[in-house]
């Protein structure tokens, strides 16, 4: 028996969340008195997972799996679960993983708890704490099936070092044509930009910015901070920004360390999706904007004056701390 963790990579390089889910898996394995086996796809430096407590890596190197394919990846994971006799599977909360998780759950007849924000409350019975009602509440869920799948929220557990030496093995799953019945035709990913899911810092703009032509300063602020850019729903509905930047209850969830909201009023549907962020900063010219009640830091002022000033101060800060 072991704890299995799916560690994501992009073009051979592990994503940051791979180390977070590995850390989480290590914690669960410790509680259960067992070890962690990771599954990686075409990873270049698979042994690096040892730093986070993974003692064995099953590395799958197939050309056919060089682009993500939900069903095929889920099939590989299911075969790894069987091979390792794993009872707990740890996953992240990226778009790709949320795509494959239910497929895996159905294949294994396993209970799946997504959006988990802490190490298990207990492992026998197996109870985890997860967000519900779009971050307005938490629910403690028992997973009672033989195999259990836990989806860890981004940034909720953190990256924890627990160095062990990791053995790396090639894993050769058997795949069928059916695994590839949904084919990728074209991937349109903005190159060289931090994604909302990966970002430590997210800079977000609302209708208060008046029009798409004013996003230059939002992007510059994001650049200085190494942040991802996001927006409120009306901003994407109006076509000022792409849908993929829409955050909130009906958009992408944000769980960054720092969330900076510029010209966003803080409607309940917006807050629901971003409140998992640890520190929230609001810049708004209306002192009554509801967002101030949900924020840690705020500036009441005109975004068109405050944001350029903030960019300058951050550049000075960077220069001093470089």
């Amino acid at each position, binding site marked *: 028996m072991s704890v299995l963790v799916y560690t994501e990579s992009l073009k051979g390089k592990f994503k940051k969340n791979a180390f977070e889910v590995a850390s989480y898996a290590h914690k669960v394995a410790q509680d259960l008195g067992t070890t962690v086996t990771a599954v990686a796809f075409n990873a270049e430096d698979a042994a690096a997972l040892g730093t986070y407590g993974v003692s064995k890596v099953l590395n799958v190197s197939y050309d056919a799996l060089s682009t993500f394919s939900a*069903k095929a990846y889920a099939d590989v994971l299911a075969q790894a679960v069987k091979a390792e006799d794993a009872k707990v599977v740890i996953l992240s909360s990226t*778009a790709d993983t949320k*795509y*494959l*998780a*239910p*497929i895996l*759950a*159905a294949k294994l007849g396993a*209970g*799946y708890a*997504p959006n988990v924000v802490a190490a298990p409350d207990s492992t026998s019975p197996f109870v985890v704490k997860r967000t*519900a009602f*779009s*971050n*307005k*509440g*938490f*629910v403690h*869920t028992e997973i*009672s*099936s033989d195999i259990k799948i836990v989806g860890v929220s981004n940034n909720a557990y953190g990256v924890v070092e627990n160095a062990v030496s990791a053995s790396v093995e090639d894993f050769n799953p058997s795949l069928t044509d*059916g695994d590839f*019945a*949904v*084919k*990728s*035709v074209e991937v*349109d*990913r*903005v190159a060289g930009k931090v*994604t909302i*899911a990966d970002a*430590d810092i997210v800079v977000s703009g609302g209708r208060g910015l008046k029009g798409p032509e004013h996003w230059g300063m939002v992007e510059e602020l994001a650049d200085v901070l190494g942040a991802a850019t996001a927006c409120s*729903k009306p901003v994407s*509905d109006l076509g000022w920004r792409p*849908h*993929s930047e829409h955050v909130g*209850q*009906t*958009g992408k969830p944000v769980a960054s360390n*720092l969330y900076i909201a510029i010209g966003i009023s803080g409607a*309940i*549907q917006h807050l*629901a999706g971003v409140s998992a962020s*640890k*520190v929230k*900063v*609001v810049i708004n010219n209306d002192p009554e904007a509801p967002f*101030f*009640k949900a924020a*840690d*830091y705020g*500036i009441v*002022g005109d975004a068109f004056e405050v944001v350029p*000033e903030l960019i300058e*101060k*951050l550049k000075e*800060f960077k220069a001093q*701390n470089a």
Partner: protein
Amino acid sequence: MKILVCISNVPDTTSKINFTEGDTKFDTNGVQFVINPNDEFGLTRAMWFKEKQGATVHVATVGGAQTEPTIRKALAIGADEAIRVNAEPKDGFYVAQQLAEVVKNGGYELVIAGRESIDYNGGMVPGILATLLDMNFVNMCIGLEIDGTTATAIREIDGGKEKLSTSLPLVIGGQKGLVEESDLKIPNMRGIMMARKKALNVVEPIDASQPTQDQKFDKPAAKGPVKLVDAGNVGELVELLHNEAKVI
């Protein structure tokens, strides 16, 4: 083409969330229930297939009699028939098994569900359903075209989108983008009148497993007051973020 739109009945997005019975139950007191927003986009896309491609559109929900106003609303928007599986939606796996039975019996070729329900944010029903039925599956779907039995779908990925090609039978987990916000239909008087005459078939649940149990709820800790920084002293914010919050 026969389409099934799966609808979950969820608290309105503005609802205050409270718990009762020693924090073991969601308190529905005073809560307004609506069609799950992700399903509303899916339903509107289904209406497009009905108008432009002659599809038949049914809606299904797994829930008690209290969900009927929500299903009637879907009928008022234009669905042809509704099915209610008369059971509490215990968990995602349980719901997916019930819906799988509905899909099998109804011979649907396209099942449109939502990316997630905004109540428990499970995000699992469509994927489990597709896998149980061995149908193709696209999640976080923001665009869908059907030509004969060929489907072209766009899905949202972190930092962009991906175009996918597949075939019917197909299940999608949809969201905004399938149609735009401005395309959403509000039921009109005629729709509401017609909905009263449409079939709402109640079926009993099958035996199904329930691998997870929600035991207890709690709410996020109350937040301290915001620290305001003067607009003339933006440097102080940088200080605070570095020294106090330690996030830069």
